[in-house]
């Protein structure tokens, strides 16, 4: 229910932002506040901050630090309202590693995506792999009865360099700016 409300808010904010960009070539954040209502100020500020972090928008003003004006880099569906920035940062090396390895186990992916500076915990790796499997990006491959499950990234789902975002109610692909809803729990054929 809360996620549904979040998605509605995100859609409203994004609609206002895309309309302003089409009309003026840039988005004055103050104008967005006025369109969606000042009661949304805090939520909208967080949304804009997340979009900047995810490089969905970029500053478009002389004072880029304050981001009073922004510009959409890639248009598309409304990105999610709520993301966990720490997890988003770990999803990027996981996605880059998946694209390079082709097929992998969770353990191999976690180790390969980690560096001496950024450690990608296997728990986060597993959550991301299962989420992308549920969203149709990965297929499991298993040649033996025992041993770890191996996965393969489907070539058609290798959509680009940016890691698809896993959020509680689905998967948002930052490459084509589209939502991919996960398949219902209980199975896929």
């Amino acid at each position, binding site marked *: 229910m809360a996620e549904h409300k979040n998605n509605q808010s995100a859609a409203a904010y994004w609609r206002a932002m895309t309309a302003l960009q089409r009309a003026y070539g840039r988005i004055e954040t103050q104008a967005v506040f006025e369109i969606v209502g000042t009661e949304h100020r805090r939520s909208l500020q967080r949304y804009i901050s997340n979009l900047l972090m995810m490089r969905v928008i970029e500053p478009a003003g002389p004072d880029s630090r304050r981001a009073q004006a922004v510009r959409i880099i890639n248009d598309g569906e409304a990105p999610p309202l709520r993301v966990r920035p720490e997890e988003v940062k770990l999803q990027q090396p996981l996605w880059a590693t998946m694209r390079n390895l082709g097929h992998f186990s969770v*353990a*191999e992916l976690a180790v390969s995506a980690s560096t001496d500076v950024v450690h990608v915990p296997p728990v986060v790796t597993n959550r991301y792999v299962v989420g992308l499997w549920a969203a149709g990006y990965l297929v499991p491959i298993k040649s033996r009865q025992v041993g770890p499950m191996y996965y393969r990234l489907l070539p058609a789902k290798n959509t680009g360099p940016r890691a698809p975002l896993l959020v509680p109610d689905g998967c948002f692909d930052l490459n084509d700016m589209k939502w991919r809803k996960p398949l219902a729990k209980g199975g896929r054929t």
Partner: protein
Amino acid sequence: MTETLTQHKRPEGAFERPGSLAPLKNVAAMMGLVHRLTDRGAHMPGFGVMHGYSGYGKTYAAIFAQNKKRGPRVEVGDSWTKKTLVTAILREIGVREPKGTIAELTEQVVGRLAEPNHPPLIIDEADKLVDKGMIELVREIQEGSQVPLILIGEELLPQKLMRIERVHNRVLDWVTAQPCDIDDTMKLIRLFCPQLAVSDGLAERLRRGSEGRARRIVVNCSRLAEFARLKGLSSLDESTYQGDFYTGNPPSRKAVAYG
């Protein structure tokens, strides 16, 4: 085939262990190459080359460098043309739908890669660039942008590049990927079988069975871990491990006949 999410459960005992591929010798060699290129003087060449036999861990090294530097990486395909190459590079550096002639696309690539402190561009399967006559285009991109550019390819890549003097002269350094030695093998065993004590003798057998190829060693580590789990063992040596190793060879006629 019907699958459920419950099948994709967390593997037992494989979680919360730290570690990365950083200590492997080929990864360290690749990072040395990256640092020499990024720290080079203004008039120094901007190409670096890593070459070696298939399976020696060049891909692991490239992944590590990419994740560490957050740079773009492309893998040249057999069917690629010049246009595919520049389009692929543009996509990797954030252009959603590259459009234009090869000259226009190349100009865009150069413009974007020329940004100050741009991370290195890694091109894997670079042999194909030479075979298909695309290496001069890559030289043009590197010269125009001055971005550190790392070519990764098979063992004959240096000989192939030698034939193209204008590129060969612009290589700052060459790194030859080496097969995993016993030290690398033990590090991989500790990474992938953290709760298992493996004797030096068995580790050496594993290394030889895997021909020192990093990815085969990783597959065989999971075989050791699975064997130990099924037998309830916390340590393995040559006498206790009765399983075989994945060698990459096709099954023998006998194995096919008797399963």
